[in-house]
Every structure is written in C-alpha cells, then in structure tokens.
C-alpha cells in the first residue's frame, strides 16, 4: 500500500514548492488536501454520457480488485444515479458531478447535480401510479452496500458505497416485495 510513501513524497514536493514560490501568497492549509485515490469527473447531461462515467468507474474498480459482479453492480448504480440527476434534477448547468473515492476496503461514489433538492421533489419511494417507474432508488439500494441522499445547497447529492470483498456471503438479490 503506497499511501504512506505517497504522503511522504507529497510533503517533500510541497516543501520544494514552497521554496520555489517564496514570494507566492501563503497557501491556505485547506489547499493541501492529500487524497491519494480520489477521482473526479464532470459530464454533461444527456446523450448517454452516463456510459462514459460507467466505463471510467469500471476501469478504476478493476484496478482495485473488485470482482466482475461487483463492478457490474457499481456500473448499473452509477448509471441509475446519473439518469435520476438528468431526469429529475432540473439542473441549470446540465452537468453531473461525480467523485470516486477508493479506500483499502471500499469505493464511495458521489453523484451530484445542481437544481432540485430532493425534498423539493415529491417524496421518495412513494410508489408512483405507474408501477413501472420508481425503480431507480430501489435498485441503487440493492446494488450498493450503503446509499445516502443529501440535499446540498444548490441541488442533490447521492453517496453510494460498495465494500470490497474477495469472497464471502452475498447480499440477497431480491428488491421486490
């Protein structure tokens, strides 16, 4: 695990950098956020761009030894979250903001959009009249190990966690009543 080494290296180059820019404004501490395995992605809404994000997360998850089944679950959850952002977000900038954080034992995917905050929309998971919609959030919860919804200042954010298991008991596959 290279985190320790990377941190030492980052501190070395940070020092080097401060020496290189002695006249620069002091860098606020917050600027120095060391996050070794954090990826960010912003894609425009529409034209199936959720597939681009899904393929990126696929490559990241594969590098971190997630199993094919888990990778497919992650991809599908990401696609559903992106579709929700596009369909329900009423986003003014038409962008989907994504963050993928990889820890030793899990991946956390955050999908955010500006626009409608979740509570401004109709209540969650009240089955709509048409029984064939309202599956997106159900799927997210079944495909991922943990799902959190947050209303942020100017929109909605969904955080989804999948734990890395090399083997062991699997979750039940049924989300229907």
């Amino acid at each position, binding site marked *: 695990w290279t985190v320790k080494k990377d941190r030492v290296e980052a501190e070395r180059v940070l020092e080097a950098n401060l020496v290189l820019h002695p006249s620069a404004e002091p860098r606020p501490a917050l600027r120095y956020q060391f996050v070794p395995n954090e990826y960010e992605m912003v894609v425009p809404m529409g034209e*199936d761009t959720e*597939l681009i994000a899904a393929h990126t997360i696929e490559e990241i998850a594969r590098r971190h030894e997630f199993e094919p089944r888990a990778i497919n679950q992650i991809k599908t959850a990401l696609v559903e979250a992106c579709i929700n952002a596009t369909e329900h977000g009423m986003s003014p900038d038409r962008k989907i903001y994504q963050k993928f954080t990889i820890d030793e034992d899990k991946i956390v995917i955050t999908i955010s959009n500006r626009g409608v905050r979740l509570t401004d929309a109709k209540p969650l998971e009240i089955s709509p009249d048409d029984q064939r919609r309202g599956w997106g959030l159900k799927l997210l919860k079944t495909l991922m190990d943990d799902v959190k919804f947050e209303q942020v200042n100017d929109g909605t954010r969904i955080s989804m966690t999948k734990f890395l298991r090399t083997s062991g008991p699997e979750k039940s*596959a049924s*989300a229907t009543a």
Partner: protein
Amino acid sequence: MNTSVQPLGETITVFASDYLNKLSGEKIERECREFLQAGCTALEVNFKNTEIVNSIGISILLGVIDAASDVNAELVFSDVSEHTVELFEMLGLNNRVVLKLR
C-alpha cells in the same frame, strides 16, 4: 446501438443494443409490437450485445412482456448476461418471462 431483426424458423429474434435505455428500449418495443400485430407467435429478444440495461429499459421490456402475453405469444429473453439476469430478478422479471443465460 442498433437493434436488428432476423427471422429464425418460426421464432422471430429482435436484438437489443449494447445499452438498453429509453431510446433503444422503445425501438425494441416498437419492433416487437409490429411483429406481434403481424401474427408472430414466438418472439425472442436477444441480449448478446447488451452490456448495460437501465431501469427505464427494464420498464419498457415489461411492456413487451405484456404485449406478448396479450396475444398469447411465446416470449424468451436469450443470451442474457449473468449481471442482467441478476438485475431482472431484482425487479421480478424472471417470474414473467423465460430468461436464457448467455
């Protein structure tokens, strides 16, 4: 992302595209309805090219299932990937249509 059609004995096969979403799902539905209206009694939707299915795509597939059962036509979803079978099972499609694994 094309769907294409191939007559195969008595069964007509419709191929789902790599990404089964609203757009490509509606195309399949349209094709299936046309065949059923034309009297087709055995329909196969083939998923060999399908990498990802989203929930809107699945809801459209339910429409296809209903359309087939309305005219008593046989319907099979074939060459379905393991992951897509898992997804179909989550939403109970396996109780309403025959699924054949890839």
